[in-house]
């Protein structure tokens, strides 16, 4: 412990956290699923055994077989391939929407905490206003006006999640700002940008990242919901939601499509939640030691 050098501590910490994460079965499970989610999201197009949008009417609505592991849908497309490729939409959305939202949220939260009372107050009012729109209804309204597309979904997710991040960051920054170590920095004449970047940001980012990782299921759920309603990703592009919708029409005769399209949704959402909870247990300073 004593002989570490500064440069290694960051890496060692990350490695320690990952080791702790993998030390429980649930933690290991979540790490594996989350990794698989992103790997399949990137490589889905190449590893899929069939062309996910190629029609083959003769092979429609087949049950699971060695040729089609999860069967085929109403126009004979391989469900397993469609699910693999559908991961792309989910992971792309999860990454882009959450990171854009995080960036905006952190930026605005810091501004709110470090400017005048009036600006802070007005920003809070705006955050609360945006938060009071019901996500899916707001989404439907936006889609009604601007038409469905993946960018619309990103926009909707960003708008409906950034206020929570901004609020969280603001509260964290405010409580940090009155901490003695920040006051000590001010006493020695540290400029505001340095205080923000060196002393506040590193202490804020942890809790926010944990909340963000637990929001990824929400993003995936919104996409699945909208695509299910036919207002998200346009067919024939496969996404978990559109596959669910395909299966829903034949739920009484060929339930395996719905069952198999639901599984990746359940797995990833559970994995992200577990990961977030484990991370919080490991990183929460109150539980450390």
């Amino acid at each position, binding site marked *: 412990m004593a002989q570490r050098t500064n440069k290694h501590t960051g890496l060692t910490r990350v490695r320690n956290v990952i080791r702790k994460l993998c030390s429980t079965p*649930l933690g290991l499970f979540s790490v594996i699923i989350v990794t698989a989610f992103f790997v399949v999201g990137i490589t889905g197009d190449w590893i899929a055994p069939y062309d996910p949008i190629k029609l083959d009417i003769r092979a429609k609505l087949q049950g699971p077989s060695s040729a089609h592991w999860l069967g085929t849908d109403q126009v004979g497309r391989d469900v397993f391939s469609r699910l693999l490729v559908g991961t792309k939409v989910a992971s792309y959305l999860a990454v882009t929407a959450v990171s854009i939202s995080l960036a905006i949220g952190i930026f605005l939260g810091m501004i709110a905490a470090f400017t005048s009372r009036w600006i*802070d*107050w007005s920003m*809070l*009012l*705006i955050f*609360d*206003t*945006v*938060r*009071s*729109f*019901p*996500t*899916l*209804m*707001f989404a*439907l*309204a*936006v*889609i*009604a*006006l*601007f038409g469905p597309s993946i960018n619309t979904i990103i926009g909707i997710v960003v708008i409906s999640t950034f206020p929570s991040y901004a609020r969280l960051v603001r509260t964290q920054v405010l409580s940090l700002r009155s901490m003695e170590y920040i006051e000590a920095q001010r006493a020695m004449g540290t400029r505001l940008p340095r205080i923000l970047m060196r002393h506040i940001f590193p202490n804020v980012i942890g809790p926010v990242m944990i909340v963000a990782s*637990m929001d990824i*299921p*929400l993003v*995936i*759920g919104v996409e*699945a*919901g909208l695509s*299910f*309603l036919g*207002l998200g990703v346009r067919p024939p592009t496969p996404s978990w*939601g559109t596959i*669910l919708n395909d*299966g*829903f029409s034949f*739920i*009484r005769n060929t*339930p395996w499509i*719905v*069952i198999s399209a*639901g599984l990746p*949704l*359940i797995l990833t*959402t*559970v994995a*992200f*939640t*577990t990961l977030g*909870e484990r991370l919080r247990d490991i990183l929460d300073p109150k539980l450390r030691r």
Partner: protein
Amino acid sequence: MLAYAIQRIIVSILIIILAVTALFVMIQFVPGDPANVMLGPRATPELKEALRERLHLNDAFIVQVYYFFSGLMQGDLGVDLTSNRPVLGILIEQAPFTASLVASTLLVTLLGIPIGTYAAVHRDGFFDKASGVVSVSLIAVPPIVIGLYLILFFSVSLQLLPAIGAGEGFWEILLHLVLPTLAIGLTWIGYVSRLVRASMIEVLGQNHVKTARAFGIPNQRILRAYVLRVALPATITVLGVSIGFILSSAVIVEIVFSRPGIGKLMYDAVISRNYPVVMGTVLASTVFIVTATTISDLLNVMLDPRTKDEN
């Protein structure tokens, strides 16, 4: 207390005004001619002109603002483009279906409180661990997946519960509520039970609970007045926020279960570009949500006299 309540209500009104303004501005940003958007590209010029006239689209911006807000003041949310009926009337007609769904979901969500309490009191016991695993698995699963799986299991395989419509007559209505309620509520039971457990464990370790124990106050009384009472405000806040999410999920669930209601109304309106109805619905639900969070905030203050405006 009273001062806080008044202040909180003023803020809520401000939020509603801001939200309405935001929606109005959003409409202004629609690319192209709103009449085109609403009626589709194949509408005749006469039809479009008539619509423009009716929606005051030909007037100056400021006049539109005036019509919009003065209409709102009188409860005028506009007119349904297909049936020509006032949107408010349609909303009132559909609201009970959604309201009953939201109410029953909230009721089911309350189950999380005893579950979380029991888990916290018997910490690390079997029930705690089991409910923990189940809750975490349920927390994030989208209601659409739960809904579809419930239909598969209870309606398609077991044929126990109805999966379509809202039913008529008390028992039928109740039966038809079961699956949609569970589709939304299961995740919330999990969430609330985890939250109650966490805050209970925190409060159980607090000094004042130790003091109460040291005075031999009976366990039941300690749990109710010294632990739950202190732990509950966090839960109430979450319940207040949950109403928004439940309402949001109702859109999906109403469509999956072919239930009438606000969500279904809105979906149909979106598909048919009936946008006074779309806007009216968003507006009404926003007002509903703001009211719900305000009430939960006020409840919080009543339970915990320390709570003041933290902003």
